[in-house]
């Protein structure tokens, strides 16, 4: 440990810079995770709200309806399928409108399939498949508002994917910059140790400890920043928009803790390994 602390104290600027880079990556990862968890929560919520209703033709037999239901249930995009019989449809209608049997005498209630997709954005695709089936008179899942909502949701997903890619790119950039700096400033030490007969593990060990320590410190910093930001944030938005489906802050922080430390250590160790490898390659 003496060697490690000596190296760190000798190059405090490099150590601080690496730690801050890891912290920044951690903060971005936290933001991406928050976005992802929020999107998953909203998707789950909307998935249950948006159901495709496919009305069977009146001449379709009950066994065939069951067969169709099983086929639809096997489709990978489909989450849940319920066959609603004419009797059940009538009962629901009466219950919803508070009517009696006599008031709807003579009105026919066709059987239908209620299809809940695995992901809300798959609604149009499943609906299109059902329309091609030919056994349904009508397939619907909402009007233009739903289409608009789905467009917005897809846009959000794309933006989130772009952001995640950006975070990944930034992480790679940080590793490359830290590595280049390490090679520039520490490469000489690795080279000299190699020339006096130090095996790779010997020269790597202090840098690895330093990378791990810096990574842990950066990761812990990112977690603490997350804590300092999200706790008041959720309190504030919870009061301002009480009906909105916000992610549970405790759940979020439980995810952040191992993730930030893991990402921190990962980035730190990866940077050190790359730097060490390049230095050893420069002077074998």
């Amino acid at each position: 440990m003496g060697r490690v602390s000596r190296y760190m104290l000798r190059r405090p600027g490099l150590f601080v810079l690496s730690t801050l880079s890891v912290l920044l990556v951690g903060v971005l990862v936290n933001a991406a995770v928050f976005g992802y968890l929020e999107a998953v929560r909203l998707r789950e919520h909307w998935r249950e709200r948006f159901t495709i209703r496919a009305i069977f033709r009146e001449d379709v037999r009950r066994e065939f309806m069951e067969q169709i239901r099983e086929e639809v249930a096997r489709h990978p995009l489909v989450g849940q399928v319920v066959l609603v019989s004419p009797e059940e449809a009538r009962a629901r209608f009466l219950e919803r409108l508070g009517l009696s049997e006599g008031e709807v005498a003579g009105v026919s209630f066709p059987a239908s399939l209620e299809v809940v997709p695995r992901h809300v954005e798959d609604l149009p695709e499943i609906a299109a498949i059902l329309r091609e089936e030919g056994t349904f008179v009508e397939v619907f899942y909402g009007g233009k508002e739903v289409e608009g909502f789905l467009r917005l949701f897809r846009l959000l997903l794309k933006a989130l994917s772009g952001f995640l890619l950006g975070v990944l790119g930034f992480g790679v950039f940080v590793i490359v910059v830290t590595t280049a700096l390490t090679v520039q400033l520490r490469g000489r030490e690795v080279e000299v140790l190699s020339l006096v007969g130090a095996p790779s593990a010997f020269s790597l060990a202090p840098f690895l400890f330093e990378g791990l320590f810096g990574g842990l410190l950066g990761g812990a910093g990112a977690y603490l920043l997350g804590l300092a930001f999200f706790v008041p944030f959720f309190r504030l938005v919870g009061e301002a928009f009480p009906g909105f489906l916000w992610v549970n802050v405790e759940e979020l922080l439980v995810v952040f803790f191992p993730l930030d430390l893991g990402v921190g250590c990962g980035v730190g160790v990866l940077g050190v390994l790359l730097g060490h490898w390049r230095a050893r390659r420069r002077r074998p």
Partner: protein
Amino acid sequence: MAFLEFRGVSKVYPPGIRALEKVTFAVEKGEFVFLQGPTGAGKTTLFRLITQEERPTEGEIWFSGRRIDTLDPRFVPFLRQRLGVVFQDLEIVPDWTVYEHLVAPLAVLGVNGKEARKAAWAVLCLLGLEKKSTFQARWLSGGEKQKLCIGRALVHRPKLILADEPTGNLDAASAAEVLNLLWDLSRNERVTVIVATHNEALLERFPARAILLERGRIRGERC
């Protein structure tokens, strides 16, 4: 078998620069040998082949009964631990202290702290650097850096010392002092020493064997 032996060794650098060509010689244990030749003769390349920083294009290199030119890269550190090398470009870390430089080869060998301190201090005294032990290498003069590099090559008591222009940055008195030190090591402790130099005057002062290298070929020997 000789302690160190080159058998028809050639080294060609891309794109076809012939640094060494069919070099054959042998050095016995405890021998003191000068490798003399002008700049660009291939002296440093020859040393780099021994330390396995480079691999020969053809030929065989034997050290202490083992062929080292085909050595598995995993074992190269163990070979280097048995060598003491004074590099032409010194290879020091500017922000390491003098003491840290001397302790590094011992730490690599796993010598314990107390013994390492003792050995490092002995070398510091031998080279007259004891007052500079806590100085960072960047603050040393050219001659002191050279001495430091020599000290690092001696401290772990290797069986073969390769000194590439070890007196290049030293004044005449210090150069004589350093060469006397290497000469005594060879004579008294049977350490094999190979000194690469372009300085012909040095050869006159020491009655040692000299291998004359020119344009990568051995042009002759003086015994």
